[in-house]
Every structure is written in C-alpha cells, then in structure tokens.
C-alpha cells in the first residue's frame, strides 16, 4: 500500500511533462478578426474597404465638423449659444464666427481628424490591397481609393493649407512627415486626381443605379474644376482655363442634367436625381449612415409641423443677409424658414403660451440667443421616413448646377467679364428655380448666385475667400476686416505635439 502511494507522486508530475509540450503554443488565435493575408481575395472584399473610406468621407457633406468648417465664418451660417442651453460649446463655434479660431479649438481639431482620418484610412486600405496577392485584379478599387484620398487632400489644402503629404499607411516614427506648402499640396491633389480619373469609369459607362453613389470620372473632374477655380488661392496662379476644361469634361459627358425640381436633389429619394455628381448614400434603417440636418437646424416646435418623433436641437442658423439675396419668387427661398411659422396647412404654429412661433434674425448676443432667433435652411426636407432621430436623405457633395456656375465663372474671368455664355449658364440655373433671368453679369452676381444655389452645401467659405468678401465683407458679427491669414485655419496644437515637424500657419 505504502509503496503504491510512494509512486503516486509520479502521476502527479505527469501533467507537468504533458503540458510542458504546450510551451511553443504561444500563437494568438484571431477569432473573427481579419488580417491582410486572409482577406482581399475578391473585388467584393476590396470594395468592403473602399466603402469604408466613403463612409468616413461622408462627413464632408454631412452634419460633421468637416462640413461645418466649410460654412462657419461665412455670411450664410452660424451656430449660436442658446439662452435655453446648448450650442455655446465653450465658445468654440464663436471663434469661427469671429474668424479667431485658436489652434486649440476642439471643432477645428475634430475637422482635422475627420479629413486626415479619410486620408489615413485610404492609405491603409491602399497598402493592404496592394500587398494582396490579387492586387493585379484590383486596379479599379485602387484607383477609387486614390481618388478619395486626393479629394480629402483637397479639403486639407483648403482648410489648413500647408499640410504633410503622406501616402504610406504607416508613418515612420523616426522620419516624421514635414509640412508641404499649400502650392505643393495643390500640385499633388491635381496630379493624383488626374491620374485616378483615368482608371475610374465614366458615369456613362456604368449602370447608374447599381453603381450609385460611387465616384466616377466626372466626380473627380468636377472636384478638379473646383480645385482649379480656387487655384489662385491655393497655388498663387490662376487656373481659370483648367477649371473651364474640367467643367466641360463633366458637361460634355452628357451624364447629368439640371433636375426640373430643385428640391429633388435633397428629398428622401434624391438618389434618383441625375444632377448629383458626388454624394453619399444614407439609410439609417439598415444602419448605413444618417442625415441629421433637420435635427440640427429646426426649432423644437417644428416637431409639430413635420410630425417629427423627436425634438429638433435648434442649432444651425442662417443670417437674414443670405435670405435677402433671393427674389421673392425664387423657389429656393422657400427652403429657408423665417418669420411667423405655420403648419403645412398654413395654421399658425403656436407655442404652449399661445404665441405663434416667429423666427427672427439673429440678435446681438451670440452666447445667449433666444430660441426663435435665426432663419433655418430646410433643403433636406423631412419625408417622414424617420429612423429615430435620423433622416434618410442622401447627402450631396457636388451637383451639376455647381459645375455650370463654375464654368460660368471661369468663362467670365477668362473673358474679362464679357461672356454671354456665362450669363446663359447662370440664367439656366436661375430659371430652374423660377428666379428672374439676369440681363447682365458681374462677379458679384456670380458670387451671389453661388450662394443662392449652393446655400449650406459647403461651398460658401471657399467662394467668399476666392472673391475676397470673407475678409472685407460686412455681416452680423463681422464688422471689420480680417487679415488674409485667417483664410487658413490653424493646425491643431495636438497635431503639432504629435508631429513636431509640422509648422503652424502664419498668423497663429
């Protein structure tokens, strides 16, 4: 008995030897996490990453900071702190409004993250796909991602001017990227867009419905038209002819029309619009993006008008000045809510105290504005298809009317102010919205028409800078000139901290 037990310790040691064999088993199991080696075998798989870049980029046209940064500080958009609470955000919006954005402004920092997040995602996807064994068969997705990256660089150049150009997925920590000048970034954007466009399909070559909303050749040409239109701002050299050429490429594709109804570009089924050149798909019902403009812009009482299942947040406003640009019979004017408010059947919209809601111009206090201050833009009209607080209207980045106006401006500037073709183009856009045709054209007319047509579509800041009115114009809270250096936002301090090679923009 005893001897038996004396040997039993050997049994106890047995697992020791057995498990010692596991010593090499220190590989990590992945459990559903993918790696580049086992993914990107088909074009569909590559596309799953490409659409990830689109999704990140949709903030350029949606409710996010990249969009707000295109509109804040102009005469058509303001976010005011409400006396009832909300939107003061520590004064960070106000800094934009007064052209005094500090390098520590959180909204500016978020915008940087959004824009460079797209570039970073594009670089990572590009590298992963290019390293895939199937890379040769994936030239389409590769070109598409390069086009998106160039588009994002266009935004970076527009906002911060002098930014680092990075095309590697992974930054060498010991060789951090240096700031490139705005004109170098301009050259980069142009050449990348031009080469990417070669490999993208034309809108005329694809099954429009099935391909929507992926970018086409014309999406890039239209972007290039805008880049060239502002070419002097970016590079110091005029590029009116290039802008004209690119506009023509879009127009000559015959892939686009001015939709007879202006508002069809923004409704819940705007994906059918043949005017949209670049847009991002939205469908909250399947958790594929959400459109929050109604929530951001409307007054809480509008909940009753549009039968909204939520209370709007009362944040985004436009100035009286922007509203006053429209003729009374201009259809586009109808999409600015102002003055006494009614139900859709024209019954007055009454608040709980029995007073009809009257939207008045923004007052003198941008920190504690009353709830009914500010006119509201309602292009993305509610169609009742709500999923929670989210609407399903696709968000628009670039429309055909923009290209027409770009061509008009290019012609006008090339021709030294003498262009009947330009006048015709502008009137085409105007007449679609029942605005009286102009009989003659001036730069001011072109600037104003762009404001009317592209209100809240992310174009106004670029336009005002190009026309100079951003610095010298006068509107509420902009009562004196601002220096030209304020045409570029500061590089967020956090970015300089993580990459000391970045150089802060002049004037900050």
């Amino acid at each position, binding site marked *: 008995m005893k001897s038996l*037990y004396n040997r039993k*310790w050997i049994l106890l*040691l047995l*697992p*020791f030897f057995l*498990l*010692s064999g*596991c010593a090499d088993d*220190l590989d*990590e*199991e992945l459990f*559903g*996490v*993918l*790696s*580049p080696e086992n993914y990107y075998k088909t074009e569909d798989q590559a596309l*799953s990453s490409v*659409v*990830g870049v689109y999704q990140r980029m949709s903030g350029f046209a949606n409710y996010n900071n990249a969009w707000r940064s295109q509109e804040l500080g102009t005469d058509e958009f303001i976010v005011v*702190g409400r*006396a*009832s*609470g*909300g939107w003061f955000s*520590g004064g*960070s919006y*106000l800094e934009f409004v007064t052209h005094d954005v500090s390098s520590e402004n959180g909204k500016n920092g978020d915008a*940087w993250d959004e824009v*460079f*997040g797209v570039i*970073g995602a594009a*670089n990572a*996807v590009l590298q992963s796909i290019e390293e895939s064994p199937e890379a040769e068969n994936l030239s389409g997705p590769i070109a598409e991602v390069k086009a998106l990256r160039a588009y994002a660089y266009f935004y970076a150049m527009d906002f911060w001017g002098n930014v680092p150009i990075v095309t590697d*997925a992974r*930054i060498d*920590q*010991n060789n*951090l*990227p240096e700031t490139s000048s705005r004109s170098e970034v301009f050259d980069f954007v142009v050449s990348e867009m031009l080469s990417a466009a070669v490999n993208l399909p034309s809108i005329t070559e694809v099954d429009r419905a*099935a*391909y929507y909303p*992926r970018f086409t050749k014309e999406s890039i040409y239209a972007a290039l038209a805008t880049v060239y239109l502002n070419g002097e701002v970016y590079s110091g050299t005029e590029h009116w002819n290039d802008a004209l050429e690119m506009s023509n490429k879009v127009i000559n594709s015959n892939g686009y029309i001015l939709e007879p109804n202006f508002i069809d570009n923004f409704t819940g089924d705007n994906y059918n619009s043949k005017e949209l050149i670049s847009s991002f798909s939205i*469908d*909250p*019902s*399947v*958790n*594929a*993006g959400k459109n929050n403009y109604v929530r951001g812009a409307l007054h809480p009482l509008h909940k009753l008008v549009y039968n909204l*299942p*939520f*209370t709007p947040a009362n944040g985004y406003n436009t100035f009286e000045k922007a509203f006053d640009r429209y003729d009374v019979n201009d259809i586009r004017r109808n999409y600015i809510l102002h003055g006494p408010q009614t139900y859709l059947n024209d019954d007055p919209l009454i608040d709980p105290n029995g007073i009809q809601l009257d939207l008045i111009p923004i007052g003198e206090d941008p*920190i*504690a504005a009353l709830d009914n201050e500010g006119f509201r833009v309602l292009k993305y009209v509610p169609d009742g298809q*709500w999923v929670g607080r989210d609407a399903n209207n696709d968000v628009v980045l670039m429309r055909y009317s923009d290209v027409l106006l770009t061509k008009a401006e290019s012609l006008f500037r090339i021709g030294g102010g003498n262009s009947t073709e330009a006048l015709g183009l502008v009137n085409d856009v105007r007449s679609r919205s029942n605005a009286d045709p102009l009989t003659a054209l001036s730069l001011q007319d072109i600037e104003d028409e762009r404001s009317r047509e592209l209100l809240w579509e992310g174009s106004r800041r670029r336009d005002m800078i190009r026309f100079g009115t951003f610095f010298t114009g006068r509107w509420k809270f902009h009562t004196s000139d601002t220096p030209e250096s304020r045409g570029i936002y500061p590089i967020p*301090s*956090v970015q300089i901290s*993580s*990459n000391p090679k*970045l150089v802060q923009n002049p004037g900050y």
Partner: protein
Amino acid sequence: MKIKFTNHLFLKRIGLLKFMMGTFVFLLCSTAFGFNSSNLFSKNTKVHIDKDQLVSIDEVFDLLRDQTDYSFIYQEGLFNDLPKVKLKKGTILANKLFETYFFGKDFKLDIKGKIVGISATMSSNTTQQKFTVSGIVSDSNGQPLPGASIVEKGTSNGVMTDFDGNYSLKVFEENSTLVISYIGFATQEVMVKGQANITITLIESAGALNEIVVVGYGTQRKEDVTGSITSLGSDDFPEGSQQNVQQLMEGKMAGVSISKNSGKPGGSNTVRIRGGTSISASNDPLYVIDGVPISTSSPARQANIGSGGNNYFDQEPVNPLNSINSNDIESITVLKDASATAIYGSRGANGVIVVTTKMGHKGKLTTDFSASTGFSTVSKKLDILSADEYVNLVNELGLPLDDQGARTNWQDEIFTTGLSQDYNLSLSGGGDASRYRGSLGHSTLEGVVIGSEQSITTTSIGINHEVFDGKLAFDLRMNSSLIEASNAPISNNIGGENGTNMLFDAYVFNPTYPIRDESGNFTQYSQFTVNPVSYANEIEDESNTRSLFGNLSTTYKIIKPLSVNVNLGYTHLDIQRNSYIQKLNPLGEGVGGIANKQNTGNSSKLFETTLRYQDFIGLDNDHSLNAIAGYSYQNFTDEGYRISASGFISDEFKWNSLQAANTVNNVSDYKTTNTLISYYGRINYAFKNRYLLTATLRQDGSSRFGDGNKWGTFPSGSVAWRVSNENFFPEENFINDLKLRLSYGVTGNQEIGNLNSITTLGASTTGYLVGGNRLTVVLPQQYANPNLQWEETAQFDLGLDFQLFKGRMFGVFDYYKKNTSNLLLSILVPSPSVVSTQLANVGEVQNSGIEFTLGGDIIKNQNFIWSANANISSNKNEVISLSNESFSTDEILYGELPSTGLTPYSQLISPGLSLGTFYGLKFTGIENGEEQFEDGNQVIGNAMPDFTFGFNNTFGYKNLDLSFNFRGSVGNDVLNLTALNLSYKGILPAKNILRSAVNDGLDRQQRKTYSSRWIEDGSFIRLNNLTMGYTFNVSSESALIAPRIYVTMENLFVITNYSGQDPEVNSDTSGGGVAPLGIDYLAYPRSKNISIGGRIKF
C-alpha cells in the same frame, strides 16, 4: 532504571523544515518552577513546528533534540502522567518552549555542557484550594484560544484552556489574581474578586516575531523574508463596513497607495504600489487569490456602454475584487520589491497583492454570525446658487429668464440617505485529517444618489484533507459571488452642452422648475438639460457580475525534504450590463426607447506544478535551504458582445426582448485569448539565521508579443543580514531584532491587451449602401508591431526591519529605486493614419522613494491597551526618456478634458517631469472682465503627492475597544474640472452656476479656459474609519463565545483646502476605463457612513 538517552548526533533524522507555519501554541499545567531556562539554549535557537499537533512531552523533547544541539537524559516514563500538549504550527525560541514547558513543573535539571539530565522532585502543591473560577479565553475576534495558560499569581497553581478555550481553576484565595498568557498575545492579569466566571479576551502583541507571511508560491516566516513585503491579517480589518480587498488596505501599508475613484457603491479604486511604472500598459498590481492570478481585463471593457461624447451612463469599471467577501479573507500580502515579485515575472512590475482566504481550524463546529446595518449620507454638496439667487443673477445680467415659480434644490432631490445591511454566516471545524469552512454573505448598499445600489451575495467553501499521515494533502477553495448593481447615470466624460448626466444636471438644472408638472410628469427643460430626478426614474442601468474563483491544490510529500504541489485553478468573471432609456425621457425621445445589452466575460485556466525542497543542513542545522522549481500554464479567454437597439412600442420590453426593437443600432462581438507559460525557481538560503539569501528566476512566454519576443527572463536576488543574531550583538539591548535587506531584480509588465503585435482588419456595425445594397465595411484597425516586447522594471531596494523593547515596538524602513524601460507606450500616431495610436516599446520611467512604518504597544497594562502604528511613504516619479532607436519625442499629451471648447488634454508626459504633471496656461488674475495668463503653456501642477501617510490606533479597555484610522496625502494637485464647467457665466441662463462664480469679475463672454486657476491643492487628512466595540462576558457553560456589538463610522471627516466634493478622486475623463490621476469631474459623491452591528459565535 531504564534511562532514555537521546542525542541528535546519532539519532539524527532528516528534519523536516517547517516553514509553513501559523502561530504557535504550547501549553501545559504548571506547578513548581525551579530554574531560569534562558541560560540553557543559545539565545536565538529556535524550534520549528510544521503543523498543529497534540504531542506527548517525550515528543517535545524529540523536537528539541532534532532542532538544537542538546541531548536529554531522563528516566523513561517520567512524563507519562502528564497530559499531551498542543503545539501549534509555527516557530518558537527553544528557551521559550522549554521555559513554558517547565514553568511550574516539579522537575530538576542537571546541565552538563550540552547534555541535560532531568529528574523528578517532590510536589510542593499541598495548600488547600478552595474557590473555583471558570470561563473562556478568546482573542479579540472572539475566537477561542485553546491552550492558553492561566496561573494563580504568586503560586504555581494553574491550568490550560481546552479546545474550546474553556478553563476551570481552583484557586487558593477569592481575591487572588489570574495571570493569563498565550504565545503571540499580551499577557494579562485579572483580579478574581470572588467572581466564579471570568471571560478573558487576549490582545495580540505587536510585531510578533513568529508571524508567518504569505509570499508568492508559499509562505515564509516574516523574519526570514529578504524582500520588501507588507501584510495584513483578518484582525486588521475593520468590522461592519462593506469593504473590498483594496479598501481594507487603505492607509495601512507604506508604499501602497489606494484611492477610491469616486463614492459610487462598489466603485473602483486606483491602486499604485510604489508609484506608476507604466504609461500605456496597466499600472494595476497583479492580484493572486489563493494562488491563482486573476485577470482584471473585463471590467474596463464593460465600462463604456454609450457612444462618443454623449455618454451619460456610469462608466466606472466593475471592481472584480468586490467578489471576495472581506469576512472570508485570512490575509493580504503586498509584494513590493523585485525580490518578492520576481516569482511572478512578467506580471510583477506593479507589485503583487496576494489574498488568502480563510480555512477551517481543527476543533468542533464553530458557527460565526455577524450582522450590521447602517446608513450613509453625502459628505459634501457643491455650493450652487439657490433659486432666488439664480433669478436675481439672471435678471441682473439682463438675460431671458425662465422662472417656473418653484424653488427646487436639485442636489437635495437626488441625494438621499443610503441604507445598508450586511449579514455573514460561516461554519468551520474539523478533525485531524479534514478541516472545513463554508460561508455565506449577503449585503446591500444603497448609494447616496437615488437609483444607485448594490447587493453582493458571496459563498465560499474551503476543504482541507490529509491522507497517509499527512503525506498527501488536498486543499480545495471556492469563492463565488453575485453582485447586482443598479447604477445612477453619472459619467465623467460628458462634454459641452450636448452632453449631460444626472449629477451634472443636479448642479445646473434650472432651480425654478418644479420636479413634476401639474399632470404629474417630470418637468423637462431641453434635451441638453434633463430633469435630474427623471434620470433615476426613466433610465435604468443594471449590472450583474458573477464570479467564481476556485482551485484545488494537491501536495504530496514525496520523501523528506522534497514535496510536490499541483495547483489547478479556474477563474471566471462575467459581467452583464443592461440599460434602458424610456421613450418619454428627452434622452430616449424620438428614438422610441434605447436598450443596451452587453456581456463581457473573462475566464482563465491555471495549471501549476511546483517542486519544493526544504531542509536544514550541516552539523548544527546551521544551513537552511528552501527551494522551489515550477512550471505554470495559464490561459485567459475574453469574450463578449454588445447590442444596442431602439424603437420599442412599449417601455415594458426593456432589454429583455430585443426582438421588439425596430432598429439595431450597434452590434459588436469579440473573443480573444492569451496564454502565459512560465518556468520559475527560487532558492532561500539561510546561514545560522544571520545571513539570508534569496534568488529567483522566472521565464515567461506570452502569446501577446511578436514572434521573436515571446519569451522574457526575470531574475532577482536579495540578501539580508540579521544583525541581532550575531554574537557581538548585545543581548540586553533595547533593540532586540535588527535586519538589513538588500535586493535587486527585474520584473515585467505585459498588460497591453491581446492582438497588438499583428495587423488586423475589422468589420464595423455601420454599413454603406452601393446601388441600394448594404455592404459591410471592413477597415484596417491596427498595424503590426512584431517587435513589441516586455516592459521591464529593474528595482533596487534597501530595507531595514527592527524590533525594540522586547518586541513592543517594531519598524520597517525601505528605500527603493525602480527603472522601467521598454515602456509599452501607446504613441499618438501623427496623422494621417487609420489608427490614432500605436503601441511600441519606448522610453524609460523612474520611481524612487522611501517607506517607513513604525508601530507598537504604547500602553499595555491589565486594563488598558493602546497600540498604534503609522506609515509614511514618499515616491518620486520621473520620466527619463520617451525615445528609442526608431522613435523619439519629447512630449505626450495625456489626461483628456472632455468638455467641448477646451484644449483636449490637461497633462503632459515629458522627460524630466513626473507622470501626472498638469500642463497648461498659468492664470495670473482677472482684468477688465477677462482672465489673464502668462504666455505659453507651462507646468502648473502635479497629481502625484509628495508623501502619503496612514495612522492606525487600537485601544482596549476591559471589554471595550476602539480603533480608528487616519490617512492622508500631502502635495498632490487636483484639477477641479467640475468647477471649471460650472463657473463661466456663458452657460447662463440655461444652466445654474457655482456661487463662487457670481462675483469673480469675469464677463459673460469669457471663453471657458483650462488653466492653473482650476488646479487646486488636494492635500487632505481623512478619518477613514472609526470602530467602537464591546465584547460581552458569557458564562463558560454558555454555548456562546464572546458576543460582540460595535459601531463603525467611515469617512467621518476630511480636512482639506480643496473646494470640490472630495480631493481623493480619479475621474475617467477619457471614458476608456482607466482614469488619469487627479482629475475631478462629476465624480459620484463620497459619503459618510455609520453602521452598527454585532457578532456571535457558538
């Protein structure tokens, strides 16, 4: 006459080394006393007793022979008439053993060199004994003390207590005095005064020499320890407060800094042993429960259930240590220096906390029941404007006023008196072969904020069984628990106006609003400012945490001195978190109610085999050798899911019927595993009990690192010199024990999460439509870093342990220096990049400091005992470098500021500065309504204290006892981010502000700015705990043992200049589950607690 002659030289046995020992009991009846034994054995000769046992006097002499160099000669059968004596596991001075044994015995010693002859003398016990005293002897916890000696003073008349602590003694005089003694306890004298029944409670003597402490993989006598460790026993824990392992240690251990992150019931603590070594990897110590290291990775994952900057839900991680009932804890040992922690290798760098649960004691069934109940109130409210003041200010500023006519103090509406209850029942007992203990605990604790409460149910089972004369021993322990918590929606990372939570709204909500309108609905202001009371009623957030820690340890004594142990362990922690926002609440409005259901689980399997060798070697047993070698395999699995859904037709569905939702907002699902394989060994060697040496080596292989870096080697060595055991050390010295310690070693840190060394792609919940079809989005998540390797901490420690005045005072002093290199640093990747951070081994951090503990019995007499101890620690932290060959930087921003409009970070990590350095604008005053600053950012404070201290006192007067514990911190700065967010008038009139902001001279346009204006001195001293108790006398016939009642008060007061709620706070402003140091932002308020309770045993 048959003479028994023994001499260890020729009867030598291979003596078992008896290192695993508890305290020691030795008992005997007593009569005459004829010699002074202290001149028999050399001063430091000790005898080790390896287990509790009942032995004959003959066997006692066997022990003495085996372990000393003496021989004894006596007539066989000399001791046959004497009862067996009880020896308790432990170590005793040979002289003490001999003296106790012969105390009052009628024997004569004939000492010739090292040979001792023993013969009988005539009994002197002839006087008439006429009065009988009986009773029970127990320790301060009411645990009966079997084998305590009770002697009538001035006589040789005495008895010992039986197994249940009972005694009965016939004394000569009704007015005589009893002297009660028991090793490890202070000797007590009690006047009989004609009482027939006297209950005696003995108080442990301070700094007992023979204390056994738990170290990694085993136990050691405290006097043999060469590393820096601190331990607490169950006697050190306050009664009646529902405290977890971490809080039990608060203020009691030098070098161990523990601070509650907030006042939330069952909230988490920040525990730092000798400062923080790491920046991005975890700084939490390793917790080892009954030999099984546990993972604390799940709790952080479950913390965040909302999204983005709008997260109003509670984000404090569940504290996994709440799963262990403090009533079940036998001891807590903190391993601090590399010598002590190196046995845990790659997980030892932040220190190791070893928790041992109670096991059964030999004896009849003992039932222990305790119950307490108490209440807590919020310790401080913020000074917010009253409704009238608010109305006046808004009018004064000419702002639109929304006065609803009510006068509501919202803080009063959400703060409440929280009731608590606590019940514990344990059964224990056992015989020679088996011992058992089982316990059941249940407690409920209501928070001081309405809607928050926690209930904990714990069970524990411990079974020890020995077979084959103790050769094979099994030790099974299981601790399981269920923690059910209801959380108030209070978070620390809400930003700007679009973020809000219950506590924030209690500060800012318009005080002219009534709680409910005429129709009984909650009044609401807007979606940015939500009725604080409605949170508690319309937002539900519950978490259920289930845990199981179990292990079976089997020890087989192969052949002396070799034994083998196999330890099989399993741990499981499962956290369910469910929340629901009702449709009507502005936060759930329009979305049709939002349900969130998530589950995070972590389990681990442990297999360990340890070979152990323990022996004395050499002619005089001068060499003691104790060695272990082992293999360990531990595999951890983390898995879980989260579903967020909205659009419910009825609020009744909540999270229980997600199919009723019309939209699934978010689904995430994950599983990861990691494996740690280790080989380890340790040698403890001692020569003549004077020179002690410990060498440890552990090799760890971790699946978390890249191919070439999976294995790490962690060596350590330490030496100690017991100066007081040297011959030259004067015997009659006020210093009776003095030990110098020196150690150096390398430990590691691998707490970086899984899958960090490879490139991964992951799917996201949000898809994208192309051609009307939804496509899944897959994007790269992180880049491979195959070079990732262990973070290493090299630590040097110089220590001094001493005892003065015959053990009445003790002290420990340590100086240490820790250098952590190859820092696992999450580098902010410069944009553009798809990832914002990247983990790499970069740079070096240094911690150095001193720790000093001094304690003892200040007063100790028959009726009154006052013992006290104090500890003080100072740690200096410095970042040495943040660069390596492939990366260099001078600064890393840290400590997120969630409030929109502010610079995003509050702290700077930079070489030359310490971690926790606040960095920003220096505020110089207010001029013309604007804040003025010095140009440029600069260092404006530091969250790390200059030193921390604790001061613990215990008083005993007759049956009354009182203990209290102060602790504090000096020189630490706190960023009062709550005040920053409540002080700028720009938030008026929609939100209320602090009274201090009214006349601060600032214009309403002043931009909210992070600056030194909001950094405050957070030094404090806190009366942490005060307990007063009374132990009743009971008759010896009674089944009851020392019933006791007590009252406990916690956080009675705090003295500080800090203007916020409490300076001891770490708000998780990042929402990531790990709080930066020293930021106070909407922390769940601290409370004062009072509870009363009682304990009975039978």
